[in-house]
């Protein structure tokens, strides 16, 4: 138990994520030097999306090896990763988080709820998708999207921007 033993991922996703790893590495470097800082904001999620975003940090996905890293403050972030249908009670906090993020900045909306409010869309308490409140650069659909899909999304963002 001296050192963490990062097992090779047994799932068939491994080849894909290695390929992603190389691609993210290249474009992240091109765009932002060596790193991309991500601030996660739950704007009303059921917390399922958070579980999978957390997964990005585990040894299987190890997001930091790509130079992608989660930061504690929007003031340190390049990307806001937003989940959930935006609830009316969270709107102001989300807007404030966005304005606290320095430009250039990107918004990635993670999950079906963040796309259009998902199954909560018609509620009195919900505004809808993240796009109703912030300019969204990329949507990562899924309920919740798997970590490899979120990673793929971050790559797509890098290619696009």
């Amino acid at each position, binding site marked *: 138990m001296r050192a963490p033993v990062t097992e090779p991922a047994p*799932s068939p996703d491994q080849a894909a994520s290695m390929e992603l790893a190389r691609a993210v590495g290249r474009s992240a470097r091109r765009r932002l030097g060596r790193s991309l800082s991500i601030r996660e904001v739950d704007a009303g999620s059921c917390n399922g999306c*958070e579980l999978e975003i957390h997964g990005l940090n585990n040894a*299987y996905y190890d997001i930091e090896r790509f130079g992608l890293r989660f930061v504690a403050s929007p003031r340190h972030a390049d990307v806001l990763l937003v989940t959930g249908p935006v609830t009316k009670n969270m709107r102001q906090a989300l807007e*404030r988080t966005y304005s606290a993020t320095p430009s250039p900045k990107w918004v990635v909306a993670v999950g079906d709820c963040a796309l259009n409010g998902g199954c909560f869309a018609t509620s009195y308490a919900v505004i809808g998708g993240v796009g109703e409140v912030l300019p969204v650069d990329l949507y990562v659909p899924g309920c*919740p999207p798997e970590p490899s899909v979120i990673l793929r999304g971050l790559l797509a963002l890098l290619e696009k921007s």
Partner: protein
Amino acid sequence: MSSSLTGILREGNRIDAQRPWQRVIVKPKTWNQAAAQLVEGTTILLGLWADTDAVHMALLNEEPVDIAVITIECVDGRFPSVGRHHPAAIRFERAIRDIYGLEAEGSLDQRPWLDHGHWRVKQPLGKRVEVLSPAPPYHFLQAEGESLHQIPVGPVHAGIIEPGHFRFTANGETVVRLEQRLGFVHKGIESLMVGADLARAAQLASRTSGDSTVAYAIAFAHAVEAAFDLKVPARATWLRALMAELERLANHFGDFGAICNDASFSLLHVQCGMLRERILRVASSNFGHRLMMDRIIPGGVSTDLSRDGLMQVKSLLAELTSRLPRLVELYDNTASLQDRMVTTGILQPELARKFGAGGYIGRASGRSFDARRAIRYAPYDELRFDIPVLNEGDVNARVWIRIREIEQSLAIIDQIITMLPHGPIAVSVGAPKGASEGIAMVEGFRGDILVWVRFDNSGRLTRCHLRDPSWFQWPLLEAVVEGNIVADFPLCNKSFNCSYSGHDL
């Protein structure tokens, strides 16, 4: 021993539509009697929720286990406050007022709870009133004394977690008061339930708190099956239990690691994170979804487990079983971890009991309640397992309960692998026979989840109430933090790991 609910039930008018536990309509006098029993501690509050012009209260007699719902019809939109006598009811009453507009008469806390003034409507499920003017500012409770300062935290927190606001009042490093303000992720789930068809309602119930999606789906299914008087095939109940235990394992491993991470011990976080990922991958390849969302439906389950899948679960079990002891040893023998965990954030057993705290929070503070044991819903009536209990009530005890529960879940899954019966995995739900109500309680990883449903004559879902265990746990976190240093709050909080979404609904 007789149940202290017997007397209360005798006083009320029985509603035949409800299954499996009785519901009676009571007069204010009996309602107040029930509140007095909660204060005495002879019964435990399981839930308090509203309906059109009525309020329901679910009660538990622990020994022997007996559950009942009492209902009071509101006159002029009022009912006698329970929270005035029994603090565990206060937030429920504030929520009832926000959503239904029913007033708890005599309540000592008149502040809104879930309604932050942004909905443009008041009492969305009661007599709706359009509001255009902004809400008045929220008043936090005061703490008075020399050298006190306040630290506001949230709703957006530093980590990848759900939003909520914590208002600390501290004297130097020491917290003298924590006040929570929740409701930020209120999605109006109960309003979306009204008139929803079963598939959509099950989908919503499964998304009340994503980390407990399996437990919620089972609880919702149980409630519907009780209302429809439906018997589910044996294989379905065993597969449900398999998914429930996988969910418990995944969450307990996640928490075990995350708590250690909050004490800056990332090695265990990494190790536990890998095991959690292994569990989710086995879930994904066998049930088609990493969190097993939407795999449990009223009437049974939607995905069967193949022979090959069974083998995969078996090898997962072997892997987890072989890895756990070294992680536990590492936890127990790391002085810096012990220094942070032991005697931090103590929840007194008396308070845990008063609030009916469930899950690892209750069980780390001497309260042994576990719905799997208390109600013995299938297949737990045929499974052998222990309910670990400790009395220390500190962060360390909450970690140990999780460790012991991991061991128990592994033992349960082992039994499921050998005893899994063959046969169909679902029955068709059909149409209900007239107006009906169902109530169910299921043990999620965090504690007991209560679900109550009501269908009208035509089989339309008219009301669904989902009560997360966090309702009774969040207020206790306020008590636990008092006297600890601010820097230990993340540890206390993580060791509780209450759900925001499950609570905010």
